[in-house]
């Protein structure tokens, strides 16, 4: 469960990115975070990853108050989360397989476990056949699937996706959404920041809409409303 309680974030330059935001996300939910650029979507993601600290208010994830986390504990907290970015962030000198394996290596997984688990996850995102292709040999959609496989390989309970379809054409974007809802059906909480109207409207999931740092709408099975 994820709880934001009266969270405000003011950046050192005075910009108020989030203003008194409160909401709760239950385990296994699929939530869209929508809003125009600068609405606070990325700040929300960064707060969840504990990349930045809120100016006031508290964030609780799976009964852990993030403000109580010590520096040393942050990596262990992040292992609960899988992260997917708009620009994929793959290692370009490694194959799809190696990119996914890398996420297990850095948690110190034994080689046998890596050899067993990586193909399963690659198959899940439909890339089993291209495991040994390098990122430059893959299309954008395929690269994003590698990134999703990498985010999932360590079995996170929450998947955070920051504009995962932002660089993809509509058809490819829909394929990525299918994979994300498949993951969600397996029990993983998915939080996705986006401003892709057609996707939000097609999925009919919970929507948190922000405008200039204020949560203006929290609706189950919502659509994407254009701001007046």
């Amino acid at each position, binding site marked *: 469960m994820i709880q934001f309680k009266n969270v405000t974030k003011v950046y050192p330059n005075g910009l108020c990115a989030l203003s008194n935001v409160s909401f709760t996300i239950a385990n296994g939910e699929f939530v869209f975070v929508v809003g125009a650029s600068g609405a606070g979507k990325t700040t929300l993601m960064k707060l969840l990853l504990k990349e930045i600290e809120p100016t006031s208010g508290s964030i609780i994830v799976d009964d852990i108050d993030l403000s109580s986390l010590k520096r040393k504990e942050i990596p262990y907290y*992040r292992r609960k989360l899988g992260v997917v970015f708009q620009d994929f962030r793959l290692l370009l000198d490694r194959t799809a397989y190696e990119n996914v394996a890398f996420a297990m290596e*850095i*948690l110190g997984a034994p080689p046998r476990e890596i050899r067993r688990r990586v193909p399963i996850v690659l198959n899940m995102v439909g890339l089993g056949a291209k495991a040994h292709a390098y990122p430059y040999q893959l299309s954008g959609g395929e690269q994003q699937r590698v990134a999703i496989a*990498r985010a999932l390989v360590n079995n996170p309970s929450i998947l955070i996706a920051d504009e995962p379809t932002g660089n993809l054409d509509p058809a490819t974007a829909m394929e990525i959404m299918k994979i994300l809802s498949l993951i969600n059906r397996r029990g993983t909480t998915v939080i996705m920041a986006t401003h892709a109207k057609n996707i939000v409207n097609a999925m009919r999931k919970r929507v948190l809409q922000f405008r200039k740092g204020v949560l203006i709408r929290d609706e189950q099975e919502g659509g994407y409303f254009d701001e007046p």
Partner: protein
Amino acid sequence: MNLSSWRFFVVHGFQNILRNRIMSLASVTAIMITLIVLGLILIVVANLDVMVDEVESKMEVTLFLKDGLTDQQRSMLEQDIRNWQGVYDVEFVSKHEALEKWKRELGDKGSLLDGYNGENNPLPDSFLVKIEKPEYVDEVIQKTKGLYYVEEVNYSSKVVEFVEWLARTIRIAGAGLVVILAAVAAIIIGNTVRLTVYSRRREIGIMKYIGATDWFIRWPFIIEGLMLGVIGSVIATGVVALIYKFLLDRSSYMNLKWGYLGIFQLLPLSDVILYVVKVCLVVGACVGALASCLSIRRYLKV
């Protein structure tokens, strides 16, 4: 950290070295030069120390006697000296023996001295006084000054003092030089690691999101620095061994050609090289690891 983590660190450390070949080469060269200087200084000082020991163990004072002493006067003098504290042997060297010895030292040029045989021998008779420990030397010399029959005193403590001074000077100057060179090497290694951190920033970012601990991110860079230091020290000891072997060959060649070099023989390679390897490896590894630790603290924001 388990075994597969350590394998990851070592593999990545090596990858870092290969990825930055030019800077790695510069680092290895810098640490290598530092350690060659260190290794040579170690060998020179080790040799000088042995030289000091050897000279000290051969503590001898030569008393040159006035001409025309009777045998009785001479044996009384000898008896007198033998009773002094610290003296363990007194050897009489006649002027004839002294000339023969000199001829032997000149080898095939000894015939030059042929004209000084017999009545023409300019050398004096002498006593070779052997002394147990260096601290008795001054006392013995003071006593000889009062002896009427002694013309001149010659002793080797000046040599010992000089060699000791030389060893001390080389140690201090060498230590200073090594510290400066090590600092330069550390700066170059630190820069190399900084470049690797820069070229890996994307990967480091991803590692942080996936939940790698700070130390997990740091270790490959520390190992990179450590390996640069170790590689440099291995090459350096090889070069030091070659240089020393060359010197040994030269010195034994000179010994063959001119009979003998002096009082001293260089230590064999096998006696010194293990010591040099140990010191260079430890210094190289420490400088490398330390340099990358400092560099990581400054440039790797984890």
